[in-house]
């Protein structure tokens, strides 16, 4: 069993005040309700919030923040808690701000291709609404019930990131309640109330709220770019014997910027589910397998894309690569190309055998570092009887390289959780030392990042945080400063 959540001190006067703000039905301090928010999928230790509050309006969010700031109560924003990093587990108890009831799709602008949504809008809801206009977003391979806005502000990534970059790069405007309760706007909607089309050419103040892990403000509305869906999908699937050859292939293909998603996975990650504990790869099976999605409007366009892909294959073969066109396991391929996916979102592909726990060293690591880092990760993970179930992906052509190991483990057994935690943190250190940066980092990762950071960076972060959140109430402790 996992370690117990720490007991908390509930003050009924605070509950009463919160009930006054959001109504009796939307605030509680009942322990059984709080308990359900005390843990997530990851190795992060459970901790109990003291109050759960579900606001239904911007005014309520402001009132909660004003009150929390005045009383110096921690506030942890939450939409579905599926971030795989313990980011919604309240380090210091306090208020867990569950935003799921603010779930309106305010506008889909089918001409300018952006939408305005509230934080509680799930990928599932957004996807089905956008489909009516033949529009799409860069859906992650996570649960469809999770929040699109939280994915975007956490620098999330999805099925179109190969082409458009991170989901945070799709943000066009934001409305935010500051930790002190004031309402602010960034992007075009700050200048004209109804204009939500772009953060540029204004100063990029959206950066004050993206990648900050819910520590600088509560997003109440977000504008996001959406994209048309061409009708013809072609998936290129190929395998290589080594990560080096896979990296070379993805880089070469990435150079042509024809793919929406460009991903390689190790044999262990292509299995449904990931083997737990580690099991050796069968002899003669390639270690790396890749899928690359490309969409076309016409058959001719598709053929042109296929021609480019063949050129890439020739180019790689000339280099002596073992690259071969291959069949990607059907279930795994479906899970990665039909997004959002209820099957993969259920975590089946990842942890069905492991048993309820998943964590990752999820990083942005330049393509030329994939090989050395992967080889080290393999040693660390296999040494701890864990599968090296690793994914590499290029984003925005070849601009970013993502390197991630999805590690399942049984949640029932504390020793196995700790084994996975140590393995993952070790992997992370290797990656950081090679110039990689983790995304959605749990506190354990934050500590390692900050240890290596330029002193000026840490100081600047502290200043910004202090400016926005003078009483350090928002998602306290998550930045590991």
């Amino acid at each position, binding site marked *: 069993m996992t370690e117990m959540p720490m007991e908390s001190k509930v003050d009924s006067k605070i509950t009463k005040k919160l009930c006054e703000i959001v109504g009796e039905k939307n605030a509680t301090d009942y322990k059984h309700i709080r308990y359900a928010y005390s843990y997530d*999928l990851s190795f992060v230790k459970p901790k109990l919030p003291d109050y759960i509050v579900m606001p239904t309006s911007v005014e309520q969010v402001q009132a909660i923040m004003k009150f929390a700031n005045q009383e110096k109560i921690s506030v942890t924003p939450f939409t579905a808690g599926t971030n795989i990093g313990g980011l919604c587990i309240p380090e210091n108890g306090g208020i867990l701000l569950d935003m799921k009831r603010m779930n309106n799709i305010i506008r889909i602008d089918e001409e300018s291709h952006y939408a305005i949504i509230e934080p509680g809008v799930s990928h599932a809801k957004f996807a089905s609404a956008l489909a009516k206009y033949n529009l799409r977003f860069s859906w992650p391979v996570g649960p469809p019930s999770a929040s699109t806005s939280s994915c975007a502000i956490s620098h999330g990534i999805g099925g179109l990131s190969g082409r458009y970059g991170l989901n945070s790069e799709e943000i066009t405007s934001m409305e935010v309640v500051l930790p002190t309760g004031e309402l602010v706007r960034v992007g075009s909607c700050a200048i004209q109330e109804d204009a939500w089309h772009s953060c540029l050419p204004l100063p990029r103040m959206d950066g004050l709220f993206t990648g900050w892990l819910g520590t600088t403000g509560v997003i109440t509305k977000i504008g996001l770019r959406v994209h048309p869906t061409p009708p013809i999908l072609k998936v290129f699937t190929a395998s290589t014997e080594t990560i080096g050859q896979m990296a070379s292939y993805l880089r070469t293909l990435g150079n042509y910027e024809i793919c929406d998603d460009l991903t390689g996975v190790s044999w262990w990650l292509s299995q449904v589910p990931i083997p737990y504990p580690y099991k050796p790869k069968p002899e003669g099976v390639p270690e790396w397998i890749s899928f690359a999605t490309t969409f076309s409007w016409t058959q001719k366009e598709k053929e042109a894309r296929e021609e480019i892909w063949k050129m890439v294959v020739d180019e790689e073969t000339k280099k002596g690569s073992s690259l071969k066109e291959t069949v990607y396991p059907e279930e795994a391929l479906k899970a990665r190309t039909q997004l959002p996916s*209820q099957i993969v979102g259920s*975590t089946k592909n990842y942890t069905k055998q492991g048993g309820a726990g998943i964590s990752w060293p999820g990083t942005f690591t330049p393509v030329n570092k994939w090989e050395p880092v992967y080889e080290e990760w393999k040693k660390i993970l296999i040494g701890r009887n864990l599968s090296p179930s690793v994914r590499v992906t290029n984003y925005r052509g070849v601009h970013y390289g993502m390197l991630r190991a999805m590690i399942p483990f049984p949640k029932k057994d504390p020793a196995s959780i700790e084994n996975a935690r140590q393995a993952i943190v070790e992997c992370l250190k290797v990656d950081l030392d090679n110039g990689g940066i983790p995304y959605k980092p749990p506190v354990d990762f934050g500590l390692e990042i900050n240890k290596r950071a330029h002193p000026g960076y840490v100081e600047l972060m502290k200043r910004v945080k202090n400016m926005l959140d003078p009483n350090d109430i928002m998602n306290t402790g998550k930045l590991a400063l």
Partner: protein
Amino acid sequence: MKWDIPSLEELEDAVWKCTACGNCKTTYDFGPPPTFGEICPAGVEFGFDGNMASKGKIAFARGILDGQLEWTEEFVNDIYRCTICGGCQNQCELDHKPVIPEIMEAIRRKAVEDGVGPMPTQKVIAQSLRSYDNPYQGPRRVRTDWTRPFKKAKNPIKNIMKENAPILFYVGCTGAFNLPVRNFPVATASIFQKLGIDFGILGENEICCGSTAMRLGDVDEFKRVAETNMKTFKDLHDNHGVETIVTSCAGCFRAMKKDYSLSDEYEDYMGGLKIIHTTNFLFNYFKQGKIKFTKEVPWKVTYHDPCHTGRHLIDYKIDEDGSQQWKGSYLGKNEDNCLYDIPREILKAIPGIEFVEMERIRSNSYCCGGGGGVMTGYGEWAVKNAGLRVQEAMDTGAQKMVSICPFCHFNLNEGSKRLQSDMKVYDLVELIDLAL
């Protein structure tokens, strides 16, 4: 009789399989085109993650097993604020999926065992079961009130204890005692007579199937009525020529098929008997061309899949010996037993019927809100939730809703009244009877 009804402790391994991914909170299908819908009535109404879907209920189970959660009045309240509809279960893909409703009911059993459950309003049901053998506090003699028109028309219905028949029509307490749905047994018996079927009823000797007791966690009461029923059924089989038990109530059907099979003597008592839902039973006649619709029913209708005749009848394939994946691995599901296509096929065959579908159907049907003891424990919420389903039906442009469960029927009609809507809910047998 020995019963294999698992305790929460026995389900602990399954509880620890839940990742808390929250996939169970909504239903979503890639399509194309993609469709999305709320699936958890409790989540829609109460909102907190603890109230929502199996994610929340498993958190409760985990907290109890962890020693972190002790009973409080509010906690007990929240374990009963769930219709045990299984909508959440249908979204999960992990190894505990097949036992998700069992985990929910095991929590309730624990509450009853610890003397804190069920809720006061539900205790009335338990008491009624003990005193009257039905959850409606109805005197025995009222059970046969619905048969009066048949007597009057000189077509009396056989009392199976007195006159043998191969078919027992097990009416169920809701059809017998709940006035607004009394047309149920009437229509069923009327169809049977029109088709010349030789059947009988238990009349005043019928007792509750025990479904309500089981759903509330009252195992002792469930066992009492289940054992009595199984003995009666065996006697009917051995001494009164009964081969088939037909029931119009989805709850009774599920109880006899699934819950009774947890007894180690199920085969001894029920082995020789076929248990069949009226819809399925009539479908066999329909397939053989014995049901000939002669009248038009000129309605635009939609169909509501009850949980009990739908996803509760899914068979889950589990790797029992570890030969395919590992021991206990959930391998897949088989929906062959679910009554999805049959009612639709019959409906579409009725002359004049224009059939339209709602968005959430079949295994992703949205529960009416009445199951799991909610209608009695939390009447207002049950009706409010039914209103949401009725609204969905109205959005299709349908004039009437059709279903095959007296619980859904009653609750949806109440939901419609709450909305001050013209929408009326009919049972499929009522439509068949009208068209014959």
